[in-house]
């Protein structure tokens, strides 16, 4: 059971947190964050930059007083968005860089904040309250680096990832996580390729539709109109019919274009975002498991040192060993809870994404089908 460090409770409702838009400010983006007061007496409106989000994340990381904090799977913060960035940088953001006006990115930030606010431990951090409610931007001063950071830095050079675990549960979890991290990343990337091609198709259809429209000359437009109104009988001259065919075909291609745009948009905003989040969450779990593994290594080192210690150093080494053991147990305890929570939220996350995706695509498919059958009827009746 985790000791509660009662820094405070959040005064806003987690599910109501919204990141409504991204405002361009020169080369930087500012995000508007809105949340509803728990008391029901109104809402908070704040403007935050990505640096502010990073500050928040750092705050969460450096909660030293919470034992076992290293066992927490921290909600992943999306990488910094860069305006006018080269293609390679945008590619790293994947789905989050797509969509109009950084809409996907805003949704990812929103999810991040909601996840933090819904976490029993993290939500109590004063920094979150500050972040969501203070009209002033949170202090940009560098946060004191907690043990978390020092530990990460110390362990950086060493290949601990493959270190064998003492606990079967954790070994299995690490193995599964490794596979899932790879698979979800790969699925996200493949899906991005699909969406990009759909967008290319929409553009190609647009060109085709325009070209068809240009085939009909100015003078013929009036002839086409007269013809389609039935006021010009179809004898001897087939040019108005041909022009009408071009115009109608142009409308068909336009419908195809709109279908691709819808399909791509649906893909982006539901499953795309879902897969992206899944992928980043798996990474977050991986980081947590790695931190625990590092603690394990620390413990094993301390035990060895205690065993081999000369009598004069023995007491000190023993003390270190006990401390390491205690910390490791705390982390493992928190980790177990976090893993259980993670499993159920990740299933729920994908479930919702898949349902929403399917419903949207079904709706689009039905709309498109209806439009196509209208075109078909129109064409069958042409020239009769």
């Amino acid at each position, binding site marked *: 059971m985790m000791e509660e460090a009662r820094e405070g409770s959040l005064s806003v409702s987690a599910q109501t947190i919204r990141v409504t838009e991204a405002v361009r400010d020169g080369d930087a983006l500012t995000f508007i964050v809105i949340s509803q007061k728990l008391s029901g007496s109104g809402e908070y409106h704040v403007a935050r930059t990505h640096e502010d989000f990073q500050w928040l994340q750092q705050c969460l990381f450096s909660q030293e007083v919470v034992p076992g904090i290293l066992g927490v799977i921290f909600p992943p913060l999306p990488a910094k968005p860069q305006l006018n960035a080269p293609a390679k940088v945008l590619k790293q953001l994947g789905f989050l860089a797509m969509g109009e006006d950084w809409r996907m990115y805003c949704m990812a930030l929103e999810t991040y904040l909601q996840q933090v606010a819904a976490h029993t431990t993290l939500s109590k951090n004063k920094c979150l309250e500050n972040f969501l409610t203070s009209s002033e931007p949170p202090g940009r001063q560098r946060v004191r680096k907690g043990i978390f950071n020092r530990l990460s830095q110390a362990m950086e050079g060493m290949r601990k990832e493959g270190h064998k675990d003492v606990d079967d549960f954790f070994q299995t979890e690490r193995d*599964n996580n490794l*596979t*899932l991290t790879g*698979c*979800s990343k*790969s*699925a996200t*990337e*493949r*899906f991005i*390729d*699909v969406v990009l*091609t*759909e967008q*290319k*198709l929409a553009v*190609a*259809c647009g*060109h*085709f539709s325009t*070209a*068809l429209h*240009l*085939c009909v000359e100015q003078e013929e437009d009036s002839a086409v109109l007269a013809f389609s109104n039935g006021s010009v009988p179809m004898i*001897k*001259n*087939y*040019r108005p*019919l*041909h022009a009408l*065919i071009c115009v*109608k*075909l142009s409308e*068909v291609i336009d419908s*195809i274009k709109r279908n691709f745009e819808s399909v791509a948009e649906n893909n982006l905003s539901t499953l795309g975002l879902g897969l992206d989040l899944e992928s980043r969450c798996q990474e977050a779990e991986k980081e947590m498991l790695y931190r625990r593994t590092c603690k394990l290594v620390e413990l094993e080192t301390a035990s060895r040192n205690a065993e081999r210690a000369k009598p004069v150093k023995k007491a000190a080494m023993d003390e270190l060993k006990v401390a390491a053991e205690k910390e490791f147990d705390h982390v493992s305890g928190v980790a177990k809870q976090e893993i259980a929570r993670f*499993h159920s939220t990740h*299933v729920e996350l*994908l*479930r919702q994404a*898949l*349902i929403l*995706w*399917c*419903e949207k*695509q*079904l709706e689009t*498919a*039905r709309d*498109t*089908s209806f439009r*196509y*059958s209208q*075109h*078909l009827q129109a*064409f*069958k009746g*042409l*020239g009769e």
Partner: protein
Amino acid sequence: MQLEEEVEDKFELNISITNPEKVGEFHYISPFSTTLPMFRSKTFTVRRRFSDFLGLYEKLSDKHTPNGYIVPPPPEKSIMGMTKVKVGKEDNSSAEFVERRRAALERYLQRVVFHPSLLQDPDVREFLERDDMPRAHNTQALSGAGFLKMINRATDSLSKMTIKMNESDVWFEEKLQEVEAEDQQLRKLHIMVDSLVGHRKELSVNTGGFAKSVAMLGSSEDNTALSRALSQLAEVEDKMEQLHQEQAASDSFCFAELLADYIRLLGSVRASFDQRMKTWQRWQDAQNMLQKKRETEAKLLWANKPDKLQQAKDDITEWEAKVTQYERDFDRVSATVRKEVLRFEKEKACDFKKQIIKYLESLLQSQQQLIKYWEAFLPEAKAIA
């Protein structure tokens, strides 16, 4: 193919060309069935080589193009006929190439028999009925450079040798401009359609890649219901890959081929205009020659050389007859070209309409299939717990 109602006799002539058999060279089997009294039997099957089709065109073109008829052009020998861009990896033995050529030959033959004047041509009858055709010669120009290059060369050389025509009938001038403008438009559209087909094929490949990655994700997933849903999703995506592939083929066959056909047909239309110009040129040349002969006669009269005078008078009579004949030819060819162009425009409108309807039907079918897949998947997604 049912022939549409004409003012003339209604009759039936069904032609189809089946897949080729490789017997030394590709042979095409063409089962016909007809109610036309002119044919020996009601149904018959013959085998023809690709070069036989080219040979048929040569014969028809030699006979009818000079009279202003628009003779349907044969398919290009190489797959790269129209555009310089290859859509995906294709070689001459691929299934797609074989199917394209088969369909192109079928359309070619259908256009030939659909032409009321060409149908009467004994060469056409022979092509449809005769058991063994001798190998066609002189198809080098067609096999090599292809139909369009041949037409372009002819037009170019013609414009070099004729003087600017004094167009008395503005209809011809306007029509030729329309034809040339349309040629540009169709070429542009063809490039667009090729681009569309390419992207669709890419979408099909990417969908397949996504399907595989989802399958892997599903099999790594612990939660049973989620794992199941993901493998169902992988199956749906696999089916969609198939749909995209089919739709790309439809784009290609309905549109790209249609546009390619009409770009070639416009070449034939231009050729008929060229012929009309040739007959005009011949008439002008004859008039000039007549003038010269008259001048010769005048000179002889003045120079008082009675022995050569008779020859001169004979010449004049000869050339007067030619002038009359050539003027009649010109009028006749002009009338034919005019009639042919109208017939061509009508056929074009019908053709386009028919193909677009076919295309829309395939789009609709695809879409309805997609709806079924989504409807089947939704309960799977909802079943995740």
